[in-house]
């Protein structure tokens, strides 16, 4: 039996043989794909290379809050606008989804039967209907709002119409940079105070009012500076001129629809994660902390949440990743994100599908890797530490 198989009965040989075989087949396949692709590209007169990035785009992007965009700008700029728009909706969506998800997860566990049932119904509906459908639905609601002339007013400064939400635009004057520096300084120092207070409490048991002092530092200190410098901030109000508003800050319905749908959809998943996390903390912990006389709010903040976070953070990370990837659905409502702007319009104009898709995929991969990198650091910081 053994002799028939010869060399194949040797595990080392078998391992090397199969691996070489796989690499060989893979290389062969790659060679085949590359050669047919270059033949096809040549035949269809599709240009290759990266020079198209410097060519003028020739189209307008309606929503670009960070960079000024004109149709004479290059495809490279389309890419940057797209990345910024993707990041904008992802970051705001993640923040809103986390807040909403935590609130709903806690309500779901509330002793009020009616309230927890309501949240349950919301979670089931929002999880089981495709996100794309929800985005389209929100968009169709938003564009059925009244026209600009009949726009709804809130407090006489915000205007809501089918063209989006118009709000006053802040104009920062020269002195404002000092205020922003003050805010950064206050954030750093309150972080240091937090660390110092923790150390002191570990040593002496004395507590320091970290929360109120941080609030004072972050809000009151810059505010005083703001008034000393003579309030270097003014607002430009939107004004109705002709058929549209002039001036002010515009938040387009595409963005609002994406933001609402992404955060509401993801919040349903996050609320279930939060619920599972809180339920994973054993009942004895709650009883023990009640027995030593902690207040109900303190039990939640000091005992339950820190332990629940260990269970919550890993699945929360994958929800953030999902939300970021799902932001690519903006193409369905014309939100000029990475996929719609660069992977859609630029691709169609230049025809360089391989380059455009490679850039888009590489960008998403790096965003995903960055998110998981930072969430892994955070996750390590909240896990059990052996002392």
């Amino acid at each position, binding site marked *: 039996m053994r002799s028939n198989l010869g060399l194949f009965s040797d595990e080392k040989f078998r*391992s090397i043989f*199969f691996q070489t075989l796989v690499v060989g087949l893979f290389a062969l396949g790659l060679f085949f794909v590359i050669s047919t692709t270059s033949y096809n590209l040549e*035949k269809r007169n599709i240009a290759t290379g990266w020079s198209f990035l410097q060519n003028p785009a020739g189209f307008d992007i309606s929503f670009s809050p960070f960079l000024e965009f004109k149709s004479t700008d290059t495809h490279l700029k389309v890419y940057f606008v797209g990345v910024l728009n993707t990041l904008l909706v992802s970051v705001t969506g993640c923040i809103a989804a986390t807040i909403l998800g935590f609130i709903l997860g806690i309500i779901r566990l509330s002793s009020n039967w009616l309230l927890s049932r309501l949240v349950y119904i919301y979670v089931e509906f929002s999880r089981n209907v495709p996100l794309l459908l929800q985005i389209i*639905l929100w968009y169709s609601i938003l564009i059925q709002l009244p026209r600009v002339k009949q726009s709804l007013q809130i407090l006489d400064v915000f205007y809501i119409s089918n063209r989006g939400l118009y709000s006053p635009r802040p104009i920062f004057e020269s002195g404002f940079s000092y205020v922003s520096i003050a805010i950064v300084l206050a954030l750093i120092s309150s972080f240091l105070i937090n660390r110092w207070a923790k150390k002191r409490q570990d040593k002496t048991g004395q507590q320091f009012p970290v929360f109120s002092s941080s609030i004072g530092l972050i809000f009151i200190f810059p505010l005083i500076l703001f008034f000393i410098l003579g309030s270097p901030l003014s607002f430009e109000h939107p004004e109705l001129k002709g058929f549209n508003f002039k001036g002010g800050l515009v938040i387009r319905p595409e963005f609002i629809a994406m933001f609402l749908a992404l955060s509401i959809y993801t919040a349903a998943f996050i609320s279930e994660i939060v619920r599972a996390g809180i339920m994973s903390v054993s009942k004895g912990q709650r009883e023990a902390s009640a027995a030593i006389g902690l207040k109900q709010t303190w039990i939640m903040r000091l005992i339950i949440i820190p332990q629940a976070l260990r269970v919550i953070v890993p699945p929360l990370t994958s929800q953030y990743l999902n939300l970021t*990837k799902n932001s690519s659905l903006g193409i369905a409502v014309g939100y000029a994100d990475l996929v719609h702007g660069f*992977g859609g319009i630029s691709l169609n104009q230049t025809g360089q599908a391989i380059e455009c898709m490679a850039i888009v995929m590489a960008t998403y991969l790096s965003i*995903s890797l960055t998110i998981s990198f930072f969430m892994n650091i955070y996750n390590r910081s909240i896990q059990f530490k052996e002392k």
Partner: protein
Amino acid sequence: MNEVRKPPVATTGIIGWLRINLFFNWTNSLITLFVIYCLYQFIPWILDWTIFSADFKYNYLGEQITNQEMCSRNLDPENGGACWAVIYVRFYQFIYGFYPKVEVWRVNVAYVMLALALLPLLYAKLPYRKYFLYFTYIFPVIAYFLLNGGLGFTEVSTNKWGGLLVTLVLGCTGIALAFPIGIMLALGRRSKLPVISMMCTLFIEFIRGVPLITLLFFGMVMLPLFLPEGIDMDGLVRVLVAVTLFQSAYMAEVIRGGLQAIPPGQYEAAKSLGMSYWRMNLLIILPQAIRISIPPIVNTSIGLFKDTTLVIIVGILDLLGIGRGTLADTNWLGLSYEIYFFVSLVFFIFTFGMSRYSLYLEKKLKTGINMGAD
């Protein structure tokens, strides 16, 4: 003798339940009353809109509705709710797309056969389950010839397919193909051969790191460039390739989780019996690993089922695509809420059913009853 006293009235029965769950203290009672008030405002309105003042086939004048102008709410904005007639008129398209009416019995047969094929997978105690399973294995071949044509059936090209048919074809084929590929990828990732493990890991992480829509673009725009001349791939097939690749990476991670949960003793025992790698995995490890990963497999399948809607972006008309197409028709302009409500409801029925099924499996797993996942 000790007297047996009954518990106080306020802690038992309906009153006790109400007190504990709805009126525990004054904040709780306030919240309850507020919620009841909101529901009192909302529920009658939504019932009125969806059912009592809605048009189903005829408007309030008794005419059969053939376009949006005949809907009661468009004739008289003061009364009339939803106009479900649009669903009634376009029902055929929602379910079959543009499949020729003469051949539609084939789709119906395929739907019934799909239900029969799923039966032994979903219900372990089915009598004669073995024979049903044989049918499940050959069902994809039958379905291919039934829907696409060949073997004496006239050919119906896939650009005539649409609606629920496309949604189900994409969902079922994607899941069925991704399952074996996912198993191979999961085994590959855990393999001791460094080259194979590295390639599988790279593939899985790449697919999981990019959105499905970029893979769909890849399938639509780039795949034709990769193939030699003369091979013209069908649009639906290209999308299916993308969906399958996507799903198999997620499936692989779920199955890998199951593989990791198998105690090392199982591997050692199998090896000590002299089993080869494949015999060990096929007979000992995989049956156990797949059994424990069935609930998460169902969950990723729900995700895929919802994600099939993305194909409308590359121009394939699934259920949502037919809905949007109907909205673009001047006859049915402005009925977006009715159409989106209907499409949501169909998706909800499928996905909610699947999630209930996964919960049922999880409960069964916990109680340790054999669920026959082979």
